[in-house]
């Protein structure tokens, strides 16, 4: 299960501008962007328990929202999903794993932390070039791009 956390639109301007700036640095003009955090939790938990993790553990209810399915930000373009490679220690994932055990009383098998970027921009090759230049380090990261 992937739990996706996003900043509420009225608070998201800074992170969006930061992302657009980074892409511009790599030569890509992005018209609009939205960002989110991803937690892939592998464990025998019910949907209600995943809901509880999203609501009580991983989200700041004042500034953020969560969803258990892929978010649709209402923006035409691309979705970039970035994770650490499985062979790389995921410190955030490890901490969340411990926290989940504290909340639910059972430890998940694994937790991995990632990010998703939604970008309204030009072609996929150009986006891929910019992502490799500024967002990911292919030594430690893996990523995929899909049309939305």
């Amino acid at each position, binding site marked *: 299960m992937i739990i996706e956390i996003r900043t509420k639109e009225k608070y998201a301007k800074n992170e969006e501008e930061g992302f657009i700036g*980074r892409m511009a*640095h790599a030569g890509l003009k992005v018209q609009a962007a939205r960002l989110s955090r991803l937690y892939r939790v592998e464990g025998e938990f019910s949907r209600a328990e995943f809901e509880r993790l999203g609501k009580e553990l991983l989200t700041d209810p004042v500034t953020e929202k969560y969803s258990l399915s892929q978010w649709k930000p209402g923006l035409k373009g691309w979705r970039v999903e970035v994770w650490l490679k499985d062979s790389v*220690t995921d*410190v955030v994932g490890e901490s969340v794993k411990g926290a989940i055990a504290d909340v639910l009383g059972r430890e998940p098998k694994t937790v991995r932390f990632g990010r998703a970027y939604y970008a309204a921009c030009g072609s996929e090759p150009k986006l891929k070039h910019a992502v490799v230049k500024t967002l990911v380090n292919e*030594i*430690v990261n893996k990523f995929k791009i899909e049309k939305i």
Partner: protein
Amino acid sequence: MNDTLSRFTTLPAKELEALDKAAGWSLNDRELLEVQRQFRNMGRQPSRGELETIAQTWSEHCKHKTFSGPVVFKDGSKVKKYKNLFKETIVKATRTLNRKWCLSVFTDNAGIVEFGRGGKWGLAFKAETHNHPCAVEPYGGAETGVGGVIRDILGVGLGAKPVLNTDTFCFGRLDSKKKLPKNAHSPERIMRGVVEGVRDYGNRIGIPTAAGGVYFDDGYLLNPLVYVGCAGLIPVDKIDKKVVPGDLIVSIGGRTGRDGIHGATFSSANIDEDTSASAVQIGHAVNEKKALDVLMRARDLGLYNAVTDCGAGGFSSAIGELGSETGARVRLEKALLKDTRIEPWEIWVSESQERMILSVPRAKLKKLAAILDAENCEYCVLGEFPGDGRLLVTHGSETVVDLTMAFLHGGVPNFEKQASRRKIKINSAPPARPAGKFGQILKDLLAHPNVCSRHSVITQYDHEVQGGTVGKPLQGKYGDGPGDAAVIWPQAATLDQADFSGFGVSHGFNPAIGRIDPYQMALHSIDEAVRNLLCAGADVSRTAILDNFCAASPRDPEVMGDLVLAAEGCLDGAIAYGAPFISGKDSFYNQSKDAEGREYPIPISLLISATAPVDDVRKALTINFKEAGNPVYLAGLNARGMGGSVYNELHPSGNNAVAPLDMGAAVKLYAGLAKAIKAGCVAAAHDVSQGGLAVTLAEMAFSGGLGAELDLAPAAREKRLTTTELLFGESPARLVVEVVKGKETEFLRLVKGLSVSEIGYVSEEPVLAAKDGGEALFREDLAGLKASWRKELI
């Protein structure tokens, strides 16, 4: 590889070289032949684990064989020979000065000086570099650099409590147009990753990051420099440590995985496209915090006899170092692992982070285990220190290493390096008067990447955690002016809120001067660091300093020549300023091939980190103007020369002469000013450094929200000094002080006979105006100056 290893003692030189490359050991020809000879004498073939151990132990990172080896330096027809460059320069300065307040120098993971009143505490200070890992993976490299230097402080004596982190970075220019090779990250990318790594590790572990700097130069485009430092407090009765034969080897903290294998040997090689991802380490600040908390409790209960950190080389290096006299018996099957798919030799050399090795008396293990369990900190007993001088490492029935410590630590062959002085043409002709107006040039200088505000970096760090950061990195009326030095009140460690003893930490760094004159670079850097401490109100007569050299390949005689000259500068500067070196580190092979396949080396780089006591932190100084009407004084002689200046980057003046430091005059000047500061005569002080006098005045003014009316005519100056040199030259040993109006007479009495001149007064009007006698120089409003300076770097 097993087949090759079974023929190791008879391999021809070419096959030895190929084996070394395949294994990633970075041993040179002579070292490989010496290893071969030793095993031939033993009458057997080595195991992979033994060769890995030797490669780690003999690596540049662990043995510092370039700096501590023999060097022949040629300067024209003059030849000077060094048996051990490090001992004959850096160590010599400290031995010559022989300060009683130096409690531990060059022998442990960090240097220690006396701290505070009553002789109860020592201040441990150390700086490291983590350059190669940051070039490959900036975030992970920076994180683990911070984690590593914190562990140095945890591993000094029986463990010091960290109270301050420092960071100084060198990146390529963010606007660089140079084409990068395929495997290189852009400077923007490296900077972002490094800053985020330092931020996340320091903030999560709860240590303030409050001193440092960021420097941009295209020399660092392919090889960024990441200096990380840490200071901590240790009770003086916990400084001595000694492994007792029979003690258990206990590893606490993180688990062992395949991450970070070959980090130590990596530092002996240039970065190229084949650089292995496994050389990258991954940090986990929370695990290190658990180890920190355990150590502080166990130390005070006397539950272990010695401690050191697992840094480069992992168990191999840490256990080898602790057991260098006693030997060590290690059973690797006892190690806690992240991943079971790991070879025994990999367990032995892995550089997985957040691990500390303790030497624990058997009778105390139970009590220690109780603390470890209470702090949720994992541990394992790996073996014991037997006292037979032999290193025996096994994994089940397999022997991984069986060597004598004498061979391991004394067997590395050292050979003479050639060094020569670089030929640089010096032009001392007066710089041409610039075409533009001085006011606009001042704004351009304030906006230069090496001068402008670092707030976008600094504000990412928690510099307030532990509640003792008195002298902050951002200062002044609006909390955004550039501080000269951090002032720390370590009450979180001493738990004594009635004692206001603190310490200052500052830096000096001048690679632009190093390109022209490495000797003067060292002097300027020491002077800048000491001057910064003085500006914060520290007692500079008790300054202790660290040297961190970074250079390109030492196989280039001119690179070695730069190193020799800088080391000689360190010797002369330290003795003149009475400031002993207490610790240091060096990093070589900071060069790579550029997009055209040409070697691209960094310039010789020396970071001087300095610390000195602040007797009462409540009296620490800041840089901003405080009160309208207060007189402004310039201390120090304005000397000729624009070499290495920021101005020369923007407006090449043709003059590249570096103003030499007059050490004797500087020391006298600082002693006089220190008395005036102690007497409460000085309201603000700021050093003159990058950008020159005009930039210093502007920073003091807009940080205080107060203007100044200045006439520079009385300023002491060399003959034929031009206005450009006066305003924008970067000659050393100068600072601007704002004097408390009612104490001006006392101030003048205390600085009598010194090069100190009144140049104007602080004004209510938010305008900085300067003239030189009859010549008006500039008149600029503070808002415009500040707007130029306050750029977003990241």
